[in-house]
């Protein structure tokens, strides 16, 4: 069998333009191990979760049969749950602009090959590799009312530092500060990657025109990375909707439920009170909220693209 005569039927049998070789069921073996994990550990629990959200299933009281929308109706009347939705949305509103704004600011300042920039990049990215428990340990100590770092510094000026952990209005902003400190590295790096894609010639032309740096920023740089700005905003919305560890460890949802996010509500309903149906229903609402927020943002991004 000569090689060239083999090549022809191979090409004809192919349907996917990027594929190489014959279309045969054997090839499915490549995806089989992953698909097994995907189906058993993602598709099945997703379906099970949806089913569960329509059941009266309390681990302590036992299975009470299907209840229709009752779990959802109860959630909509549950002040703790509604508070957690409000808290989560508020947290997203205050933290995402900080991630986008500060991430972009740092990226703009550190977008060169100098040693100085690489040094600062390491600092701002470094905290991202720490786990949430270490970060919260550190920050609980910073926020500690009598002997915390914040109070030590404020004390030098004869002031009293605000208490982020026990003041209702400050609990979520305090957690937002910790979160930005923890993972500002990712948005910064995404913006840096985008900035490096901008051709240098564009800036050289602007320099010839003696354009001010503000003008360069507004009329060249920002439009060039518009897609990345939308991408970072979408990623951060999705990430910050999942706020859990920081709130659980720093404030435990308090004071007076002021910092309890949805995921913590799910954790408490599902794994402390063992109300599985109820927790599953809350999970579905979180899922829908996240999808909705992400789609809304992409839609807004597209509108701006067109106009």
């Amino acid at each position, binding site marked *: 069998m000569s090689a060239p005569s083999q*090549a022809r039927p191979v090409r004809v049998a192919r349907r996917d333009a990027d594929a*190489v070789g014959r279309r045969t069921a054997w090839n499915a073996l490549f995806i089989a191990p992953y698909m097994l994990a995907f189906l058993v550990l993602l598709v099945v629990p997703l379906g099970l979760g949806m089913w569960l959200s329509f059941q009266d299933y309390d681990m302590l009281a036992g299975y009470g049969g299907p209840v229709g929308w009752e779990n959802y109706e109860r959630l909509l009347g549950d002040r703790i749950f509604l508070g957690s939705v409000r808290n989560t949305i508020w947290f997203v509103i205050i933290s995402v602009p900080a991630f986008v704004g500060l991430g972009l600011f740092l990226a703009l300042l550190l977008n060169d090959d100098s040693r100085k920039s690489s040094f600062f990049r*390491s600092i701002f990215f470094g905290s991202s590799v*720490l786990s*949430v428990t270490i970060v919260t*340990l550190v920050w609980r100590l910073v926020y500690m009312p009598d002997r915390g770092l914040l109070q030590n510094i404020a004390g030098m000026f004869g002031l009293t530092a605000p208490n982020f952990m026990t003041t209702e209005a400050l609990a979520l902003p305090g957690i937002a500060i910790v979160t930005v400190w923890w993972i500002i590295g990712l948005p910064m790096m995404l913006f840096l990657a985008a900035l490096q894609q901008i051709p240098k010639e564009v800036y050289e032309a602007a320099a010839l025109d003696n354009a001010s740096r503000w003008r360069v920023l507004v009329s060249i740089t920002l439009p060039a990375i518009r897609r990345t700005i939308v991408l970072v905003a979408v990623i951060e919305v999705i990430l910050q909707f999942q706020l859990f560890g920081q709130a659980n460890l720093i404030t435990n949802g308090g004071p007076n439920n002021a910092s309890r996010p949805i995921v913590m509500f799910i954790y408490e309903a599902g794994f402390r009170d063992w109300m599985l149906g109820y927790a599953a229903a809350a999970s579905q609402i979180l899922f829908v909220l996240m999808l909705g927020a992400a789609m809304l943002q992409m839609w807004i991004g597209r509108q701006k693209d067109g106009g």
Partner: protein
Amino acid sequence: MVLGRGVKKLDLVDMLLLAALVGLAIVWVAPIVWVIGLAFKPNDVLMRTTGGIFAPPFTGKNFRDILATSAVFGWMLNSFIVAIGQTFLTLAISTLAGYGFARTDFPGKRIAFILVIAGLAVPEQAIIVPLHTMFAEAHLHNTYFGLIAPRLAFPFGVFLMYQYFKGVPREIEEAAMLDNASRLKIFFRVVLPLTVPAQATLGIYTFLHAWNEYFWPLVSATKPEMYTLTIGLAATQTNFAQTEGIGFLMAQAVFAGLPILILYLFFQRHIVTAVAGGAGK
């Protein structure tokens, strides 16, 4: 500064920006330096004040206490086993599946691919309650497998490898195919060596994620001897109110954070590209 590539002289704006940058950097570094300082202070001093961390007395007692009593070594070992296991398995199944989707054709491929892509939108929290019940039924809680497995289902790695394979020139494989090499042989001999950069990206990303994972280990590893580092430290934090142990707690934080920070300093360049490249896809 890059805001104005055309401007050469260091003007007032440049200086203000530099000052802002240095100020921010201090905010980023100060808490860590302070905590490291506290870890070397005797607990009875910390009871009174946490100021003056650079002044004596210093002590190594907190770290000696860790070596003597803390379970932190066991937790670290658990974290390592889970993170390494998850990384290895994720790389294996994602690479195979990414190749299968990008470069081969088989009946049902389109529908399977659409399913997997839709799976990208599913957050962990949407499935954690039923998943916990399933694992309880199967007696998989408090096992390494139970800690490793759930993350394998998330399609991110498959998607990353798929993207990567799409960018590899087809001609390389077609040439091998003309030589009548078998599909598997092509995959292992020709294709796999080309994927090392993508493997590194996905590997680092997966390892960091596994090392820092919080929610699933919190509900799955309930026996202290199965705690990962993250969960073990979380458990000790509940003692935070009894402040006599601040020095010990801080020493534990330093002890737990240091290995990953050192790894970060060594592999900085790769980690940064891995995380940025991974999320940008």
